[in-house]
């Protein structure tokens, strides 16, 4: 009796949809990524025990080690200029959209940061002070 030879079927991994999957993942990351606005702004955040997780906001005011004021990464010459710019930005905003993240270097003196806090409040913003959790000793 003659035995029939089994036909070998070539084994291939289907990779046709791999590119589609990869691009879907890329789109996911592109949509979810939140690019840092304060890249290049040097500041050491203050630390406190009484901090909690806060929601991110589209508005961020920062003060670097040299006391330069930034609104979403754009430098301002003073608190007055910041106030008028913030006022225009916050004009149509309500509720949590008025939250303004305030990031300031730990060594900045009150005489420098106080006018900035005032400017945010006068412009109609709600200050969310950003810092780090201080480890319990």
């Amino acid at each position, binding site marked *: 009796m003659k035995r029939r030879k089994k036909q070998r079927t070539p084994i291939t991994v289907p990779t046709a949809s791999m590119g589609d999957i990869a691009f879907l993942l890329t789109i996911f990351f592109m949509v979810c990524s939140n690019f840092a606005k304060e890249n290049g702004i040097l500041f050491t955040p203050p630390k406190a025990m009484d901090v909690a997780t806060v929601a991110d906001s589209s508005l961020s005011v920062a003060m670097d080690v040299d006391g330069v004021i930034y609104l979403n990464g754009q430098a301002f010459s003073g608190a007055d200029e910041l106030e008028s710019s913030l006022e225009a930005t916050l004009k149509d905003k309500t509720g949590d959209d008025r939250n303004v993240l305030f990031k300031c*270097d730990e060594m900045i*003196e*009150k005489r420098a940061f106080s006018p900035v806090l005032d400017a945010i409040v006068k412009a109609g913003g709600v200050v969310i002070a950003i810092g780090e959790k201080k480890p319990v000793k």
Partner: protein
Amino acid sequence: MGLDRRKKKRETEVPTDSLSDVAFLLIIFFILTTSIQRLAGFKTELPSGEKTQAKTQQTEKTPTVALNGGAITLDDKGITMDELRERLAGLKLETKSNNERVILLDAEGSINYQQYFEVMACISSVGGVIGILTEEEGK
């Protein structure tokens, strides 16, 4: 001439072999650059800074936290940060109305943000509204 040569149709194909490689490289880029960082901080309740408001609030018995150099005082009595937290928690500010929740914060111009931030965080955590005392010009 009986040229019956048929034109050979060339099959056109877009090379997609390296497409997935490019896409995966992009994914790796996004994975590396995305920062899954949770912001830590606190929401402050700062009055609008109107002088009249500050003056009416000051007439009542409003707790005042002062920062002088490295020292913290609550109503002119020296206190540590832990004691301040306990004392302010004891006031049960969360149950009170907005005007009664005001804690005045008085600090020298030379106080750095680190010290100020700690005290502000402490006041905010117990439900206090921070009233910033500022020196008037010319005084």
